[in-house]
């Protein structure tokens, strides 16, 4: 195993692990705010849930970008060929 492969695997692991922190915190805040809003105003739960899911998917995309980078490093590494 040469240095580039080791660095790629480490890079992929680091990308996924640290890339998950930000969206994790963000999703936590979003869900907490939505719970707060539903507790205050239960009749708006339908609209809130729909908006929440769309917002969560947008936040989650940040983590997915990191996953795509990690998979590129593992499966389609441009420096290995």
């Amino acid at each position: 195993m040469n240095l580039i492969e080791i660095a790629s695997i480490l890079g992929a692991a680091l990308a996924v692990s640290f890339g998950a922190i930000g969206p994790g915190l963000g999703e936590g805040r979003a869900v907490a705010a939505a719970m707060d809003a539903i507790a205050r105003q239960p009749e708006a739960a339908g609209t809130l849930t729909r908006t929440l899911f769309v917002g969560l998917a947008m936040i989650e995309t940040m983590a997915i970008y990191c996953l795509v980078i990690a998979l590129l490093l593992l499966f389609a590494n441009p420096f290995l060929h």
Partner: protein
Amino acid sequence: MTESPLAIYALFHLGPIAVTEPVAVTWGLMLLLVGGSILLTRRLALHPTARQAALELLVTTIEGQIRDTMRVAPARYLPLIGTLLLFIFFANWSALVPGVEPPTAHIETDAALALIVFAAMVYHGVRARGLRGYLATFAEPTYVMVPLNLVETITRTFSMIVRLFGNVMSGVFVIGIVLSLVGLLVPVPLMALDLLTGAVQAYIFTVLAMVFIGGAAGDDAEGKDNKDRTP
């Protein structure tokens, strides 16, 4: 090691043309959607049957979404937006059929869809504002912003590609990994989550397409409808 989610293999050959699985599934979906639409709309009546009422509800919902998001009359954009929504939705949910992998889990399909949105964005921008007017929008608010606006136009198309690809592909990938570890029943909740993600991503892709096209077209006065909106 599971196989690469980025690789793509030929399923069979039609003469000199190699046909891959996403292409075959895409054509199957197109046949299903077009054929289904033709069959379902063959006998339309003034007093709708339950089937027709359900279809009308679907179309009216999409129209309402377009009207809410773009603030214009939906008729001009309904064919493109509605087709995008239905196609991506059915493509993401085609994983329900055993042995079929969603075509949106391969980056080529997503790139094609995002390119369609990009072309529609330019087309509607030029149509609504004229070529000069559309190019002038890149110089807003000042001329300093021209390079940034150009870069943004490219990157937001690219982020649409990666967003849809990453979400659908990661679902397929995770289910593949879990299936290789435990076979029975354990992947089922993940599959359910994957269906939810698929539906939400279809909606998000469509909303983003609406926002981008609407932003390029601006408020074209002739397309504006004020008649059925409450003041």
